[in-house]
């Protein structure tokens, strides 16, 4: 299956904010943040349908999220996962002595992950801490 290389950034969205205030254990939060926004060109390279689950992998970790159309593009080569526990499975955690993890600008590989679930935030974090994922 094709794997594409992207530069991953994260950040806020209104949907992330609203869902967060509604409760991170709820499905709306997963819908808002358990996603990666891809530019149409990158979707083509990936060879996947919209709303397919994909696995995003970096040097630091791996996570399954749903691939959706970029809402604030075009940005070919750039992947966007809203800030949250899904993004934090793969972003560069190194602070390089500044105290600040490098949340923006992590090289990642994305491939289709058919049949693999997108966990809700609490399950995701719990499983990750247990070393299950």
């Amino acid at each position, binding site marked *: 299956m094709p794997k594409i290389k992207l530069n991953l950034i994260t*950040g806020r969205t209104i949907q992330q904010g609203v869902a967060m205030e*509604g*409760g991170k254990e709820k499905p709306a939060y997963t819908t808002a943040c358990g996603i990666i926004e891809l530019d149409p060109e990158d979707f083509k390279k990936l060879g996947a349908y919209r709303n397919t689950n994909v696995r995003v992998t970096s040097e630091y970790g791996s996570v399954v999220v749903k691939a959706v159309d970029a809402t604030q593009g075009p*940005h070919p080569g750039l992947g966007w996962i809203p800030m949250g526990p899904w993004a934090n499975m793969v972003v560069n955690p190194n*602070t*390089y002595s500044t*105290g*600040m993890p490098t949340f923006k600008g992590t090289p990642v590989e994305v491939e289709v992950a058919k049949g693999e679930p997108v966990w809700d935030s*609490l399950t995701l974090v*719990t499983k990750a801490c247990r070393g299950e994922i």
Partner: protein
Amino acid sequence: MAKMVTDVICPFCGTLCDDLEVSVSDDGTKILDVYNACAIGAEKFLHSQAKDRVTRPRMKQEDGSWKEVSYDEAVEYAAKMLADSRKPLMYGWSSTNCEAQAAGTELGEIVGAVMDNTATVCHGTTLIAVQDVGVPSCTLGEILNRADRIVFWGCNPAHAHPRHMSRYSIFPRGFFTGKGAKGRKMVVVDPRVTDTAKTADIHLQIEQGRDFELLTAFRVAFKGEWLPDFVAGIPKKTIYEVADTMKSGRFGILFFGMGVTQSLSKNHNIDQAICVTRDLNEYTKWNIMPMRGHYNVTGSGQVWGWLHGFPYALDLSRGFARYNPGDTTSNDLLVRDEVDAVFVIGSDPGAHFPNRSVKKIWDLPSVCMDPHLTPTTAVCKLHVPVAFVGVETGGCAYRMDNVPIECRKVVDPPEGMLTDLEFLERVVARVKEMKGA
């Protein structure tokens, strides 16, 4: 019949809108509707009284399930954990009021904790840059009344500070800005065509992570000196044009956010952004302002500033205050196993720290004070729900421009629920007893 509570402060982001109106039931107990808030603020108020609200502390059991406990038991667990630990991390503080922040600091002093707030993953690198070069800034009202050049660099207020542009930065008709948005030029620097960029006069779609180069290129362009054909993906002609636009205004403001604080050059980006602003003051009037995230992260920095002289990453573990980002910051401490207990309040590191740090919280004695269920409450051993500041209890909060505003109490918290301040005061008292003060 509904009653309207006016002049309500929204406790979500650093925009700290204070013009919300909340209609409550006649007996004052139920929130019926919220006016003037953005979607996020409205959700905060409307969801605060959801039926599935957790109203009592819960302790994680051996088998991973949760058992409800009393506040007294929660105080006991938290006090013992802090009193017994040698170097606890007390993190968060950004979504609560200054009174709770001060009580928490007293607690941190007694137990010798490292105190850190959400700036550590947000504008901490800004604070480092300010310590190097200072910061020419202003209050948000100066922008609505004077500014005719607005730059949003590495931030997306349309999504993160939704009412910012309408209340302060683009649309208002102020004293000297009667034409509103028509009299202003707006520049956005962002690797994506964000919803903010779509409303800008100029969008510089920068190569992600190359802000340091573009910022320094502006400083060169102000002086009319040589530039290469492209910097950070932006053609030099555009750079010179935008530089001229910035110099030709009568009052400019540079807002910036995570795009520059969290990308690789971090504090060096902010250093240059501040120097860009300084340089512009040779030609006209310019200021710069960080778009602070949580509604009271700024307050946490001020409280620690006046009590101990440092705005975050405050290490009290040796009996006097120390500060060294990279050394006394939460993610570094967790990853290097340098803390032996974690106390979280007014924040969600479980969701917003890299998982490598969150794993450490999972392994440690840990307490989380939060009205919500979050990934942090999921990984901690004790979850203490508390009242929402700004909804169920008042208290001081500091806006992104450091202006302090008193949040209002609109309704009572659920029966028997404590506020952050009340819980912390009880823990302080219990710790003092345990330490034989």
